[in-house]
Structure formats: C-alpha cells, structure tokens
C-alpha cells in the first residue's frame, strides 16, 4: 500500500460523509417531497447544498471505483466505513445533534473493525491486471504482522 492508495481510501471516506451531510442539510431546507412528485425532486437539485452534496457523492463514486481497481471488496468496504464515524462527528459538531453512549460504542466497534482489516493485505486473489509479485509482497507483509 502506497501513500497515494491511502489517500484514495481517505477520499472514499471523506467524500461520502461530507456529501451525505450536505444532502441532509439541503433536504431539510427543501422540506418534505411527496412521493412521485418529480417536479419537486428536480427543484431540490437547485438547492446549493443538495447540488454540492451530489458533486461530493460523484467524487465518492470515482474514488470508490479507483480503490476497487486495486483492492478487494472486503478490504475497501470496512476500510471506508470510517465514514460512519466521520458522519457522527460532523453531526455532533456542525449539525449539533446529540451523540448517546450507544453511538460512541458503535463508533468504537467500527474503528476496531477498520483496524482489523487494514492490517491485512489489500488484495488476496490473483488476477491478470495485478502483478503477482506485488500481491505476494503484500501477503508476506501481512504474515509478519500476525
């Protein structure tokens, strides 16, 4: 794992969490949309927070696809779930929501899961696009951890 790859994983996490909070903030301003009313749905995009949120979620999708091009699905998903933690922190400090003890416990569990998976190799199966030497090196690296 190079620094650039950690940067992409950080991008997955940050874009998703920030995009979701922007969407949430924007949709609270727009108000309730009755189901099936497509005109309201189109107008919602005109809200700058919603538009910014969509832009960030597009960024998330690009980073997510990039990560999947060199890492396992079972690596990318837990590694990027730090976004839930980030979302909780944004909710507390920017949206002023209360965080209960249960939520802090949930944050702790997710962080522990992330710690578990990022200690291991990013890619565990061989495929033509990835050089075998690189995958082997990562496997050897993980063995020395355990």
């Amino acid at each position: 794992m190079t620094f650039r790859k950690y940067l992409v994983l950080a991008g997955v996490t940050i874009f998703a969490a920030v995009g979701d909070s922007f969407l949430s903030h924007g949709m609270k301003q727009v108000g309730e949309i009755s189901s099936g009313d497509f005109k309201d749905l189109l107008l919602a995009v005109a809200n700058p927070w919603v538009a910014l949120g969509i832009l960030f979620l597009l960024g998330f999708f690009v980073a997510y696809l990039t990560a999947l091009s060199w890492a396992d699905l079972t690596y990318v998903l837990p590694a990027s779930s730090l976004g839930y933690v980030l979302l909780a922190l944004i909710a507390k400090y920017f949206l002023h929501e209360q965080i209960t003890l249960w939520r802090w416990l949930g944050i702790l569990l997710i962080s522990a899961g992330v710690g578990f998976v990022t200690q291991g190799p990013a890619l565990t199966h061989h495929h033509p696009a990835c050089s075998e030497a690189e995958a082997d090196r990562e496997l050897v690296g993980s063995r020395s951890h355990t």
Partner: protein
Amino acid sequence: MKHLYTWSAIAAIVVASVSGDVFLSRAMKQVGDVGALRRRLGSLAVVVRVLRNPWFLAGVLLMACGFYSLLFALSWGDVSLVGPASASLTFVGNAVAAKIFLHERVDHRRWMAALLVAGGVVLLAR
C-alpha cells in the same frame, strides 16, 4: 403486514446492493489499476474503458434498484430501522458474496471486521 413489507424491502436493498458491489468490484478488477492505466493511456481512455465494461453497467443498474428499494423501505418503515438493518446486513452479505463470487480470501480478520462494522452500525442508530 406492514412489518413484512418493510423487511421485504430491506431484503431487496441488501440483495441489490451486495450484487451491485460485487459486479462493480469485478468490473474494476477487469479494468485494472486505474492509477497505472491513467499514466499509460490518459484519463479519457480509462473512463471509456470503465463505461464500456458490461459488469460496470449492470452494477450501476443494480445500485439504482437498491436505491429505489431504499425509498420504498423508508416509506413503510422508520429510518432508524431501515438504515442500520440494511447497512449492516449488506456488510455481512458482501463478505459472503466476495468469498463465493470474487474468490477473495476472507480470513478470520475480515470476518471480524465485517461483524464489528455491522454491529457498530446497529449501535449508531440507537
């Protein structure tokens, strides 16, 4: 009866997003390391290569199905049930599907990670 609707919609979300993630992962493995490809061929060629991959298109379609199921689920059930239930079941479902369909080596460390994250998501919604 409403309970049954909510849980069927949650099941639909989980199935659609797990298969969508698996398809996208398979597509990107076929495309190859995006960073290295971009240096060799340029950004536009990479975008074309991703967009022309049939697994990618199927994956995006499934993601869209998952999103619509989420909207249905939210109209029947509480967000505090639907959100964490679908997210945590998707985490565990992804570990199973990645092992079976993508032949990823899901060792005890990754099982632990999937279960911890799934449990954490449930607690976050309390």
